[in-house]
């Protein structure tokens, strides 16, 4: 029978147990008892997914044990380095119906649970002969060892399980994959990869003398092992359907598992099981594991593809002289556009209509005018509004054929050239606008010629179109006024006499 351990209890009936830093009773080893191999595998499966098996593997022993009633169970012993590790193992074992114990040697007492957070101690020791004695709250029983099961055997003997769905759904990352192909298919597979420009390295694998039945690609024949990079999804689907070709994905440095299958255990967390000098291939189709005695000596697949070479295949090379190509000039024309009109972003107001523009400027709100800029040129006032000039419905309207290139509204260039080509064609628009007036030569207007359109800009403009462009005044300079007091002399108000007629005399009635 068991009794709960009290806080700071130091003497125990069960040998080899002692409280740890937290006061939890802990022996040198932990023990887990499972009724069947399914539950045993399930335990390792969950444990591998949660954490690395390296915590358990150093002193892990799996015993098949027999009860006095001759039933067989599995007892897992491991080094109980901390109570945290035993807590985790006990929690997972409880999920699968297993029991957790702690102790050392042959006596193992039930590990702590919610009823007794510090653990248990046995009231008396079991006296019958047995290899292992387990003290639980419901039983105290001795077990005889039948045989030992190596964890590596568990890894290599468990068959990979097929995953639902297509292989492509199993793979999100196709950066590096491995392909195994039988010898007869090797040339075809390599040629196919090379033809489709899939980067690949390959090695031929021969069966070793020590290889045993299941680990030699089925019939113990040689096969091609090929590492491919960025395998297209269509080829992955194709290889998955071809008999004799298997696609593997790497799950460790030297372990690959067939695509579409998953090993029952999380292999990356069992890295210490795999020998660094060997290469392991887990095949789900053949339900076998191929173990290569050394990492495959990979060579680029393109080097394996080739035909015969003959020095007389072609004659000596011919010499040629290069020259610049002939220039093809295509004249740009402005033609009426059949497409929908673009937004009007500029207008050329002839000088004859400048007075109307001035009146419009006074009528429009200043905030709208703030986006307009004007340049005075000989042809008139060229007004630009990059957001559109809906407020000025006079003058010849222009639209932007390309950035900073204006053409009359409803016109387009023929042939239709792209904006970049057009810009190159006119020598660039850096620091200037290029305007193509209707029926005239194109004009280049420097950005510096523009100023914000406002009342100030047009205040002094004369109506006469011939002289107004050169007399547009610069914006009014706002020079601050500062008082400077000069010397007033000794009699500052000498001679001052006010005009008394201007001064309103105070009304006595007020």
């Amino acid at each position, binding site marked *: 029978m068991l009794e709960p351990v009290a806080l700071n209890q130091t003497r125990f009936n069960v040998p080899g147990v002692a409280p740890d830093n937290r006061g939890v009773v802990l022996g040198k080893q932990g023990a887990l008892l499972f009724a069947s191999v399914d539950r045993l595998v399930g335990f390792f499966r969950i444990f591998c997914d949660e954490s690395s098996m390296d915590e358990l593997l150093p002193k892990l022993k799996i015993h098949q044990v027999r009860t006095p009633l001759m039933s067989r169970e599995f007892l897992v012993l491991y080094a109980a380095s901390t109570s945290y590790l035993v807590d985790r193992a006990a929690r997972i074992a409880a999920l699968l119906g297993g029991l957790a114990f702690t102790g050392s040697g042959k006596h193992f007492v039930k590990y702590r649970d919610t009823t007794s957070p510090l653990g248990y101690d046995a009231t008396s020791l079991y006296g019958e002969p047995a290899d292992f004695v387990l003290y639980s709250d419901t039983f105290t029983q001795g077990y005889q060892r039948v045989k030992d099961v190596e964890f590596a055997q568990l890894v290599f003997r468990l068959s990979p399980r097929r995953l639902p769905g297509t292989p492509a759904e199993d793979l999100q990352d196709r950066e590096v994959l491995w392909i195994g192909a039988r010898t007869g298919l090797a040339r075809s597979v390599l040629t196919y990869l090379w033809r489709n420009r899939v980067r690949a390295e390959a090695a031929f694998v021969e069966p070793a003398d020590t290889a045993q039945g299941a680990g030699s690609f089925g019939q113990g024949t040689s096969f091609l092992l090929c590492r491919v990079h960025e395998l297209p999804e269509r080829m992955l689907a194709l290889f998955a359907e071809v008999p004799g070709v298997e696609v593997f994905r790497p799950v460790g440095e030297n372990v690959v598992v067939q695509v579409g299958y998953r090993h029952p255990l999380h292999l990356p967390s069992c890295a210490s099981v795999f020998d660094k000098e060997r290469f392991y291939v887990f095949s789900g189709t053949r339900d076998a594991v191929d173990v290569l005695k050394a990492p495959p000596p990979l060579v680029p697949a393109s080097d394996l593809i080739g035909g015969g070479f003959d020095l007389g295949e072609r004659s000596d090379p011919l010499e040629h002289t290069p020259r610049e190509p002939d220039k093809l000039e295509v004249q740009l024309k402005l033609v009426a556009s059949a497409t929908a009109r673009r937004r009007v972003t500029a207008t050329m107001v002839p000088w004859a209509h400048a007075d109307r523009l*001035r*009146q419009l400027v*006074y009528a429009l*709100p*200043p*905030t*709208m005018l703030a986006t307009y800029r004007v340049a005075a040129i000989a042809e008139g006032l060229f007004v630009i509004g990059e957001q559109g000039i809906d407020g000025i419905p006079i003058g010849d309207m222009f639209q932007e054929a390309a950035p900073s290139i204006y053409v009359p509204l409803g016109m387009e260039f023929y042939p239709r050239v792209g904006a970049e080509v057009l810009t190159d064609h006119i020598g660039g628009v850096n620091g200037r606008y290029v305007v193509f007036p209707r029926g005239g030569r194109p004009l280049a207007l420097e950005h510096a010629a523009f100023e914000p359109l406002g*009342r*100030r800009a047009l*205040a*002094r403009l004369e109506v006469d179109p011939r002289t107004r462009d050169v007399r547009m*005044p610069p914006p*009014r*300079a*706002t*020079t*601050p*006024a*500062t*008082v*400077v*007091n*000069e*010397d*007033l*002399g*000794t*009699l*500052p*108000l*000498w*001679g*001052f*006499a*006010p*005009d008394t007629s*201007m*001064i*309103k005399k105070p009304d006595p009635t007020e």
Partner: protein
Amino acid sequence: MAFDPAQWLHHFVLPIVAGGDVRVQHVVGARELKLLLETEFGRDESALRIAEARHAIASELVLTPPEPSLDEEALRLAAAMQNLLFLLHPGTNAPSVTRRRLRSLSTYATALATLPLPDLDIDDSRTAARVLADRHSMLHHLFDLGRDDVRVSFWVGKREFHGAEPPSRLLKWPDLRRVREERWRVTVVGEAMADPLAKPIVTAMLASSPLTDLFEPSRLEPRFDLLPLVPWLKLPEVARAVADRWLGAGLPQVAGAYTAALLALYNEKEPQARAASRTATAFASHVQLLALVAKRGATERDHLIELQGQVQAQPGLRDFYGLFAAAQRVGLGRPADVAADPRLRDDVDAYATACAQLVGTERLLELVGVMARGVGNLQLAS
């Protein structure tokens, strides 16, 4: 020193109008004014430059103004300014200058600055606006006219120089005499409003030039009073120029002062205050609608975010926007033809809703009450 009209134009009137150093040396009395009025400035270069500068200023305000001439009104304003600056001159503290003479000078300068305003019953709005623009072109530097003062401290004392440079002898051997210079700038208006003799002159100038008064509502002194100014806001040219000036400066710059003046106007007991309140309220809404037209298409949420940003920086603006929402309820928030354009009407509604949300229901009701009492809508006020 004899008074030379040409020199006076060059050294005083031209910098008053176009900026620069305003040299104060003379006082303008009856004799000097008579001399100025009788002098023909037609070919004087300074007079031409003054006319050009005044025309540039007037062109920003009204459509195609004629070039302003140096007529009697302009000369009287300039003479008043001259005498104002003379009163602030430290040289008037001389023993030979009596207080009585200074009072006489102040009275005369006030009389010079007092000009008859255009009669709105006789003059059309364009003529009246041009007269006001011409006067403003003479006084537009009034609020930024400043004076650089210097204080020189040395080992045995200190001296101050107002609008003049200290003599070089005071600055010699700066290390040995531990000379230290401090410079600051004072505004003439600020100085004048603290002087009982100069204050009436500034007040008279602003009364004669309502545009100058309207353009600077956010000054500290003298207090911005809407009652005498509102009749001018009824002139389209003046209203347009004022709105342009305020929108150009940014509504947040003037909104606080205008709101304070408007709320003061609502509480005025003068008989003409109710009509003035209606005009002033409508003008405040008008300016906000102009600002709204420039950014049409914004949603109510956009408006609210922008207004909250402004109010966060200047909490005093909250009432300005709240008055717009209140004006919608009082019937002074928008012209009737806004309804003709459904998109514009929706924009205005969105803006008004954002303004109402900004101030909150409680404050909005208070503002509606104050506004309704101010404009004489007693039914709504009750």
